């Protein structure tokens, strides 16, 4: 029933959503803060969904990948700012961010991905903490003092450009990461990778017997998800904030938020993380005005409710409702 050309239609609602969000932010510059926050959550959700949503494994140490990505960019700017490389430092920073997160994910994956469900979760809980304590304990990259590189940004790009990057272009790059994450998700879903992941998520033993090398596909999803997290850290944290502390960037809080967003929207779907990111971001924004500091108190029981009663999430439920309607092609 699905024509070959229609396979990639589902990217359209994604582009519409991000386009609308971006447009809103451009037309109402006063709301840019909110827009960038929302985009952050959507991107976080999409990147995390690529692993948790599609494989069904929970990586409790996920934020570590964002953390090393942030360091990748920070280090590039900190050390290369006087080489007169101009904006290509950013490219170097991004590459380093991706490289760091891929290396870390390979190291973690080599051990953890051989383990099943609960053992995997246990192993990853330690990654986050472990890596942060390594940085602090061995005083790597300045240890717990972190790296502050506002000065270095100004030296590298000139004061006005540095400011523009921090307040605007970093967010635009983040939108780019968001779209990249969505495209990768869709590409995986429409190719053998996606089907292998679905199979291993549903029933890992049956998948093996069907000829699926589950470890290989888990690693692919894990590395991709980690690399995207690295890019997110490099743009949304490093370029925007222009400082990095281990206590900040390895904060498990972000992994919790990622979990909430993916579950809320619908794990394993393409649109889910976007829907989840918007709902969570908007709720958090308004909650922080009315009731600061309470969002976890509200969201934690909601998570339990979703897991127990509506595990398929918002988009999951939506998918069922649009079967046999023209919207079916677009909502996955």
């Amino acid at each position: 029933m699905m024509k070959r050309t229609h396979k990639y239609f589902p990217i359209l609602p994604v582009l519409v959503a991000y386009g609308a969000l971006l447009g809103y932010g451009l037309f109402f510059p006063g709301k840019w803060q909110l827009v960038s926050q929302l985009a952050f959550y959507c991107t976080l959700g999409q990147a995390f969904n690529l692993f948790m949503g599609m494989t069904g494994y929970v990586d409790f140490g996920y934020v570590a990948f964002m953390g090393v990505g942030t360091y990748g960019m920070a280090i590039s700017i900190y050390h290369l700012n006087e080489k007169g490389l101009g904006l290509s430092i950013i490219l170097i920073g991004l590459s380093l961010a991706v490289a760091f997160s891929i290396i870390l994910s390979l190291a973690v994956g080599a051990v953890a991905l051989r383990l099943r469900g609960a053992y995997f979760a246990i192993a990853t809980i330690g990654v986050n903490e472990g890596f942060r304590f390594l940085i602090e304990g061995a005083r790597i990259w300045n240890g717990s003092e972190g790296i502050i590189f506002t000065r270095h940004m100004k030296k590298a790009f000139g004061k006005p450009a540095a400011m523009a990057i921090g307040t605007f272009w970093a967010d635009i790059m983040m939108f780019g990461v968001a779209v990249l994450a969505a495209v990768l998700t869709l590409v995986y879903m429409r190719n053998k990778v996606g089907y292998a992941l679905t199979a291993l998520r549903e029933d890992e033993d049956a998948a093996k017997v069907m000829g699926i090398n589950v470890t290989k596909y888990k690693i692919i999803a894990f590395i991709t998800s980690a690399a995207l997290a690295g890019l997110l850290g490099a743009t949304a944290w490093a370029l925007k904030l222009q400082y990095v502390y281990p206590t900040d960037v390895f904060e498990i809080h972000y992994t919790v938020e990622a979990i909430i967003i993916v579950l809320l929207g619908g794990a394993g779907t393409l649109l889910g993380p976007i829907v989840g990111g918007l709902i969570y971001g908007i709720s958090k924004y308004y909650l922080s005005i009315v009731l600061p500091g309470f969002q976890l108190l509200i969201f934690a029981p909601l998570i339990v409710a979703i897991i127990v009663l509506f595990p398929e999430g918002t988009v999951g439920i939506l998918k069922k409702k649009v079967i046999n309607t023209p919207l079916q092609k677009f909502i996955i």
Partner: protein
Amino acid sequence: MPLLVCKNVTKRFGGLVAVDDMSFTVKHGEMMAIVGPNGAGKTTMFNLINGVFPADEGTIHFEGVDVTGFPAFKRAHLGMGRTFQIPRPFSSATVQENIAIGAMFGSAGSEISVDEAMDVADHYIGLIGLSGHRDKPAGGLTPIEKKLVEIARALAMKPKLLLMDEAMAGMNPRDIDEMVAFIKKIRETEGIAIVAMVEHIMRAVAGLAERVIVMHQGALLVDEPTKEALTDPRVIEVYLGQPAEEFDA
């Protein structure tokens, strides 16, 4: 060259010997059944052949290749297909997707694309008569329909050796006859080299198998053509618990 050679295969779980020094051979195109009372180790034997878990002792050769240390997915690529006693379709995937997954990752998988796999799936959907359910999530099917999907998925892998674990379990006699006819048909039309089944149901065994291996407490009891096995006093004793002579005709 034989298709499958098992030599001295043994598997222990703690103190229990589930499979005890099993040795047998299966030829290309042969249809064979492994039977035995409950707990005889039949499904464990299947799991060992398939690679679900490794054997403690012994070797397994598939088309001359020593697969003893191979993981399950590698054995699948070489041409082993499997259905489970209780069907395990991928619930959230559609019927078509389920079967296509078999095609995508089975022995011919590396050569075909996702779209081609979908076409292959359609062919098998027609074969099992579930065309109306093509886009339904497999989780919502009846047990019999799930069983058919499971078989189609295994067939789509283009296996040379198809291991069917208790395919007839829970069926009434008429369904069994239909399934027997179906298996005969796929053997001819699909050129499936061999179907090995684990079965309690003698009706099916008699209808399909050319040769029977009887397992008892993990070990090989008899390995002979079906007709002889069904009347072999050792076999009767193992099923009925006492020598055949003690029964009235």
